[in-house]
């Protein structure tokens, strides 16, 4: 028996040593050397990509893959279909990456991931592989969210911008202009609701999820209240932050927004709007396609879209959270050079034009938005994208999920009437500080 115990112990120790030291790190320099050259030998890449909304039928990812393969005949790209939700996607891809899986070689990820993925060595830092002026062609906010401590962990693909959708017919019926401020929107919505022309005034997203963090980021930017300062410390406080939180409360208190908004994600608010129940909707650019589609929208042809309003006074207007998806390179890829080449191709003009013509998203490359093709597509979210003031979420920290949770938890409480704006701001500030110290779960 003693022998057996010793054998078991030795076996256990050997297995433990294998588990802990068998996954030793690789030097970054050698990875970057490999990544700097596109191989001349045949290789097949795996691209982890969720469904890209299509404007006119074809599978957008396939079009991009075919275009890349034409440019690099010895390289092949195979799609690995990712989940449609951001969190589900992150859980699935990090499970693979943390286990040092060489695939996927390239993965499409949310613009909130770079700091967290960079800090955990789940993405290759690619700044040394890019020309110095690389980012001059892309929105500055996209660059900010793609970087962590001076390193670039994501290459741009497409952005999600938010807009205010409105019912043209209802505003015309009441002889009202499209509101330019939140105060005006509240008055307009109430008037139309009182007349019985719509059940809800303003639809947005306040469920406990990243959707609400995007909304809060925008309201805080409207009120010129930052969440973090330039040094990455918590800066959320003061009348500006309270004004933003008070607006969220006012929407539900006055009945302009239904109280059930505290359970709304994007799809819920969009369904209510396309079902003809709302006057205004805050949603991403892709909602235009659904709102204009007669097969799914009761209000098709009666919808207009403008940049979001701001607060009364000198504050900014047309603020939009810098959402979207970028390509990350798996540092454990066996084909690093080809993977970087593919991620750069997706950010380049040819792939961005494919997005412009065929996808219901906004290409990240600024230049393509001003092309005649952009006007021909007939999507106002494309032509108006340049008018927006993109604001980044406080993603410059590897603890962003905890920071986001602190924001959406308190914003949800204030919207649902369970906390006053002042209480919610104080609690969010305390929770964000705990998160930044790495103490929050």
């Amino acid at each position, binding site marked *: 028996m003693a022998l057996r115990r010793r054998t078991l112990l030795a076996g256990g120790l050997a297995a433990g040593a294998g588990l802990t030291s068998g996954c030793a790190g690789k030097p970054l320099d050698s990875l970057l050397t490999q990544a700097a050259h596109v191989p001349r030998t045949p290789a097949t890449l795996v691209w982890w990509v969720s469904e890209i909304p299509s404007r006119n039928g074809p599978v957008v990812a396939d079009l991009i893959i075919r275009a890349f393969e034409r440019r690099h005949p010895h390289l092949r790209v195979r799609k690995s279909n990712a989940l449609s939700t951001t969190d589900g996607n992150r859980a699935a891809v990090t499970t693979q990456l943390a286990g*040092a899986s060489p695939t996927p070689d390239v993965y499409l990820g949310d613009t909130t991931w770079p700091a967290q993925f960079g800090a955990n060595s789940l993405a290759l830092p690619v700044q040394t592989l890019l020309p110095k002026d690389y980012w001059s062609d892309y929105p500055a906010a996209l660059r900010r969210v793609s970087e962590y401590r001076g390193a670039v962990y994501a290459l741009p693909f497409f952005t999600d911008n938010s807009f205010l959708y409105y019912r043209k017919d209802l505003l015309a019926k009441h002889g009202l202009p499209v509101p330019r401020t939140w105060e005006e929107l509240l008055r307009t919505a109430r008037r139309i609701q009182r007349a019985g022309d719509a059940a809800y005034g303003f639809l947005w997203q306040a469920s406990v999820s990243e959707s609400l963090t995007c909304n809060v980021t925008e309201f805080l930017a409207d009120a010129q209240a930052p969440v973090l300062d330039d040094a990455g410390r918590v800066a959320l406080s003061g009348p500006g932050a309270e004004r933003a939180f008070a607006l969220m409360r006012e929407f539900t208190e006055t009945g302009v927004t*239904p*109280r059930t908004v505290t359970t709304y994600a994007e799809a819920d608010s969009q369904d209510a709007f396309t*079902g003809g129940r709302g006057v205004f909707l805050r949603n991403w650019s892709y909602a235009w396609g659904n709102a204009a589609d007669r097969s799914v929208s009761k209000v098709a042809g009666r919808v207009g879209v403008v940049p979001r309003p701001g607060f009364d006074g000198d504050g900014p207007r047309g603020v939009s959270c810098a959402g979207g998806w970028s390509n990350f390179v798996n540092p454990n890829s066996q084909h690093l050079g080809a993977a970087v080449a593919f991620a750069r191709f997706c950010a380049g003009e040819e792939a961005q034009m494919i997005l412009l013509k065929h996808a219901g998203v906004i290409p990240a490359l600024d230049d393509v938005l001003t092309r005649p093709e952009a006007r021909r597509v007939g999507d106002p979210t494309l032509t108006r994208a340049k008018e927006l003031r993109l604001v980044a979420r406080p993603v410059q920290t590897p603890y962003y999920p905890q920071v986001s949770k602190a924001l959406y938890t308190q914003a949800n409480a204030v919207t649902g009437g369970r906390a006053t704006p002042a209480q919610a701001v104080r609690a969010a500030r305390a929770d964000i500080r705990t998160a930044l110290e790495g103490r929050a779960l």
Partner: protein
Amino acid sequence: MNAVTSSATVPRSPAPPPAGPRTRPVPRGGGPARVSRRKRARTGWFFASPALLTIAAVTVFPVLFSVVLSFADVRLEYGGFRLLSLTGDHYAAVLSSPEWRHALLFTFGFTAVTVLLELVLGTAAALVLERLGAARGWVLAVLLLPWALINVVAAQLWGYLFNGTYGGLTWLFEQILGHQPDILGQPASAMGAMVVVDVWKTTPFVAIVVLAGLMLIPGDVYEAAEIDGAGAWTTFWKVTLPQLRPIMAIAVLFRILQAFGIFDLPFVLTQGGPGTATESLAILGYKTLFQNLDIGRGAAVATTSAVIVIGCCLLFLRVFRTQADEGGRA
């Protein structure tokens, strides 16, 4: 299960000796007999080892590795992860965290309420089912439908009913209350909704288990109670319930284990909200591990949850055994 129940009602009889070649006694003593026994044992281990290794790989190893991770300083690096040193920091962080305490409280509350309700309703349903004649099969099949549904599908269906815009239940409550209720948007109603869904889904399981117990109670026990002049209530409290106790204990044990690990309902219905009102330990562990990418603390949440639920089950069994012993002496 049957053995537990029948042991209380049917006198044990000695098991008949197994028939066939296996009845041949294994020779005892040293020498060739001992060698033969060892050889047989080795052959046995050889044939059993694939199954044992599979079980170890899919259950024992992940559990043990999760415990190791919860005590390790885990660092993700290019080329994988590394366990740097042993640490108790993850447990210190988890146990001192208000989020963990809140999740523990919610999970305890949810488990206690749902298991109690399911036990009461399941027993009531089983008593009705037992008295049904030919229709029992059909009723049983209908009753089992919620139990047969995949949890996520059931949660999604209820999510549509509770939906604030077009949900059937929201509309119904709006007609009754005169205003649109925010069922999943307020802590109390969100928790209530979750309890309703779980009870709807899992009561059939308890009913089936209890029904099996009821059918094993011998009829002469009831006849004796009737001769003694016991009424329906007395018969239920003094005869049926004590006889059902062992099988109910098993049902409760299963339900505690399942309810304590509640994940899919809050994940689909509320994502743990409003605020963190319906954030269970499993949801917290998931968020810590897969959203925060904090492997050590995520593993610590999982391990503490497992230890607590095992402790609860052992405590429950101990209390149950003590009560059963006292009942037996009485």
